[in-house]
């Protein structure tokens, strides 16, 4: 793996980002709208006296942390889609680039963009609602790492399907995280779900992160040992997703990259 090639691919996606209003909107506009709506909703709930002040931090924390898996998945699949829309996959892979270098770059692009969105959203949260996500402490940092990895899992899974079946199923790029979100418990405790859905949630690693966040917000602690099971689970999913995307790439090489559309 060569750093200069990863830098080249990263630059390519970075240049595309600064010229594409859609991508900039995704980074800033939607997190802002989500924070605005949910922040006002939670303020209203607090003002009615039906709930405590911590609900604001719990809801806004959920929105802000959800940025990591959402952006991680989105960047991988939409970057692939843009290359397919532009008939550009050949320009990438008819060069010395290794498939692993492309994968690593997409992961880095996901971290970069989700970090920018995260910082932006957390500052908005402080500015609008005097709610500081950083007050949860650095103990949540490893949990954030798990969120990012889960984003990669879904990113590679959806990208591998799109590689095989083409852009006719591109809607998966936008749908997949929305499908998983009810089971992730972003805004509510997992106990709120019906029992069958709770069973599903046990197999969704990010659900443990949001549970941990709510525990910390309520004044409790989230021991690092609670991270072991969701991390192992996520790692298994990650390995499977990597296997799937590599096998999809090998499969499309048999048809010719130029034929993927």
């Amino acid at each position, binding site marked *: 793996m*060569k750093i*200069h*090639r990863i*830098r*080249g*691919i990263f*630059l*390519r996606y970075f*240049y*595309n980002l600064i*010229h*594409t209003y859609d991508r900039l909107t995704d980074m800033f506009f939607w997190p802002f709208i989500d924070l605005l709506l949910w922040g006002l909703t939670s303020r209203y709930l607090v003002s009615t006296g039906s709930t405590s002040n911590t609900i604001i931090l719990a809801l806004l924390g959920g929105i802000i942390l959800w940025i990591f898996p959402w952006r991680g998945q989105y960047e991988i699949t939409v970057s692939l889609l*843009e290359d397919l829309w*532009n*008939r*550009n996959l*050949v*320009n990438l*892979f*008819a*060069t*010395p*680039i*290794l498939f692993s270098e492309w994968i690593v770059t997409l992961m880095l692009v996901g971290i970069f963009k989700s970090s920018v969105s995260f910082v932006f959203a957390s500052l908005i949260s402080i500015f609008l609602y005097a709610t500081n996500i950083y007050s949860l402490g650095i103990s949540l940092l490893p949990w954030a790492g798990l969120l990012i990895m889960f984003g990669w899992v879904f990113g590679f899974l959806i990208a591998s399907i799109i590689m095989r079946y083409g852009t006719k199923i591109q809607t998966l790029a936008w749908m997949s995280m929305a499908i998983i979100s009810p089971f992730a418990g972003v805004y509510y405790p997992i106990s709120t779900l019906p029992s069958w859905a709770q069973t599903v949630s046990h197999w969704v690693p990010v659900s443990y992160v949001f549970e941990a966040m709510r525990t910390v917000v309520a004044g409790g602690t989230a021991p690092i040992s609670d991270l072991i099971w969701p991390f192992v689970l996520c790692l298994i999913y990650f390995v499977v997703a990597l296997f799937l995307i590599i096998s999809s790439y*090998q499969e499309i*090489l*048999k*048809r*010719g*990259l*130029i034929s993927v559309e």
Partner: protein
Amino acid sequence: MGGKNYTPVIKGLTFDMKEGEILGILGPNGAGKTTTLQMLLGILTPTSGTIKVFDKDLATHKSEILEHMNFSSTYVDLPWRLTVKENLTWSAWLYNIPNRRKRLDQIKELFRLEKQWNMPIASLSAGQKTRVNLARSMVNFPSLLLLDEPTASLDPEVAAYIREFFANQRNVYNKSIILTSHNMSEVENLCDRVIILKDGLIYGNDTPANLAKKIEFSHLRLRVTKNFAELDKLIALRKLESINDANNYTITIKEQLLPLFLYELTKKNISYTEISIDKPNLEDYFMKVAKTI
């Protein structure tokens, strides 16, 4: 290229090339030209056989080999929101070009891209995009260059300049080039050797001149002024193919029969004011291949 779910495009292809050679790959549509280039670039896996470039196996040394190769194709677009400069910059990083700025300035000048340098690809004409693609293919100063229809959509003056540029790359720097084109005169002028593909197999593999020699027929062009009926009778008698456009005859005839035919014209008092004989060329050979499919 074949497999349980795919239709084979290339059925048997064995060729080699020397350093500093310009090799043309010709063939009718669907013959397998682009497929061959794709296999050489490692973006299409052959179902059997091996590809060796620079004496290394492409399957196991792909990245290493592609460091010294590049390509340009009209069928492949560059990211269209990026400017010309940005597209060449990220490409230069891929190849770890030393003195990147200097190299990009050279490329900008060589391919006359000064005016388009900061323009997005989307705003360029087809010819300008082709020039940018060609410029990108020279970023790493490749030892082996694959060009798929390199002068398609270029205006004649720029196309001539580009042909001269690539000829110089071979003459001065001993670069090797594999070229596909539908422009027969381009192939005839640039290529040392031509491979003709037909139905996924090699139909011809020789110099353009030697391939042309395999055609026995020449085109005799006459502007006839008298005894048209006699000429028509003679053409019918000799069972020749001809086209008559306002008494301008183009007659396809075997080269060894030409002296006899001209003698018969004189004997039958058929007058003409202009005469020219077109010797067979690569295009004639190509047409013969295309017709036999």
